[in-house]
């Protein structure tokens, strides 16, 4: 797997092969599989993501009772209230809730990169597919872009909340989604890298502080924030706005912040919102 995004971008410039293809070829080498097999496996991931969003049931609740029904409430408001957000962003928010809530309620999801952050990539991707009328094959290519970014983050930093805080989960998911979205909007690999950098920069330092240690509060709603952040980062990029700090250096910064973070805010459930009086009360009552 690649050590840097720069390496992939340079390869794109030198060979003329798109970012996603370079990531896929690396996968073929790594796992000794054909291009067709690699592509089909990734396509299955996208189909499974769509199913996780579309099979939402607003009536179910998580084991703890803390989560459930929010995506239904949001849809109700988007349709019948006076939302400030437009159709596309409203849909992104709704999809993120659908998937992340489904996860908390033991429904089938795709960890991307983790289960706790599983709503971010599908929310951005599915809403974009619906808006732009893109094929599943195109979406699969974008998923390779997202995976390539995630793989480099995993190499240079971490994708686990227990290691790097929530910046490693929602932050990474957001960075991956932003890169994929830029690809779907016709951007180059270098632009994808730019969006990945912008997205992760915005979420640096994010604590992983699940109430009662469960992937519910604040995780589910943070998926909405991560998805929206990916959209804004991609839009900034498509407007020509650049990240002054390159993606690889942002990933390194994430790694060093993760190391500096106190254990209490690294998925232990001992700090942050988990340690608030209400968080403690919830923990006692479960």
């Amino acid at each position: 797997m690649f050590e840097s995004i720069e390496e992939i971008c340079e390869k794109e410039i030198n060979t003329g092969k798109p970012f996603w293809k370079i990531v896929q070829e690396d996968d073929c080498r790594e796992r000794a599989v054909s291009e067709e097999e690699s592509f089909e496996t990734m396509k299955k991931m996208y189909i499974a993501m769509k199913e996780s969003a579309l099979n939402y049931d607003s009536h179910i609740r998580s084991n703890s009772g803390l989560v459930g029904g929010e995506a239904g409430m949001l849809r109700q408001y988007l349709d019948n209230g006076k939302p400030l957000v437009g159709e596309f962003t409203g849909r992104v928010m709704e999809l993120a809730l659908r998937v992340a809530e489904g996860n908390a309620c033991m429904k089938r999801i795709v960890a991307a990169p983790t289960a706790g952050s599983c709503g971010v990539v599908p929310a951005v991707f599915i809403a974009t597919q619906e808006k732009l009328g893109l094929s599943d094959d195109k979406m699969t290519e974008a998923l390779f872009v997202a995976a390539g970014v995630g793989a480099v983050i995993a190499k240079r930093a971490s994708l686990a909340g227990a290691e790097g805080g929530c910046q490693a989960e929602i932050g990474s998911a957001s960075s991956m989604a932003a890169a994929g979205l830029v690809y779907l909007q016709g951007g180059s690999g270098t632009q994808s890298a730019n969006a990945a950098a912008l997205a992760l920069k915005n979420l640096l330092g994010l604590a992983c502080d699940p109430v009662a240690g469960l992937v519910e509060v604040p995780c589910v709603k943070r998926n909405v924030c991560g998805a929206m952040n990916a959209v804004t980062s991609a839009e900034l990029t498509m407007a020509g706005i650049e990240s002054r700090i390159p993606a690889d250096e942002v990933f390194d910064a994430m790694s060093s912040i993760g190391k500096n973070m106190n254990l209490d805010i690294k998925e232990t459930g001992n700090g942050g919102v988990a340690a608030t009086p209400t968080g403690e009360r919830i923990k006692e009552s479960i």
Partner: protein
Amino acid sequence: MNIFDIIGPVMVGPSSSHTAGAVKIGNVSSKLMGEKIQSVDIFLHGSFAKTGKGHGTDKALVAGLIGMPCDDIRIPNSFEIAEEEGLKFTISNVDLGDAHPNTAKVVMHGVSGNQVEVVAASLGGGRIEVCGLDGVTVSFSGECPTLIVHNVDQPGYITEVTSVLGKQGINIATMQLYRKNRGGEAVMVIECDDEISHETVESLSKLEGIMKVSYYSPN
């Protein structure tokens, strides 16, 4: 790690380490048992014990033991399904000392009266590590075909076993050696790139000085 560790696995939520990893521990344990399980005692350590209930870790372990993959939507109902299949199980908490925070000890009793004990940790992202097998410290991922050979701790066995594999064209990915004491019982854990045939496993177990051969296949 590959890109499908980044995008994937497809799994039943809510936690790749507490739910998907737990299913996989159940899967690997049941395969290491090698026969139908009559009853099983499951012990949860650390974070598994603390937040296991909310994450469905208990249901996930039982689901894995009865052969469900980590994306089986029936995982939340695994207790009922296990009971229907006649599997008796108990779940309790345990303190395994300085073990990984997400560790489970699974003590299985097979229909033939055999007992197998597996200690495994969920490392995150659905990846696991088997760290104990019948009281012997081991370390393997459950992602590759794995051969576990118990032999007398004397010179020559490693060459003998690896040459059998070599002749079959089986490439070794990793190999670890453990022993309880010098000259006593030794254990080789060999992770391979390729599947090992039933015949090869049989012929290895018949070699002199080899006490037991277990084979685990992820497929």
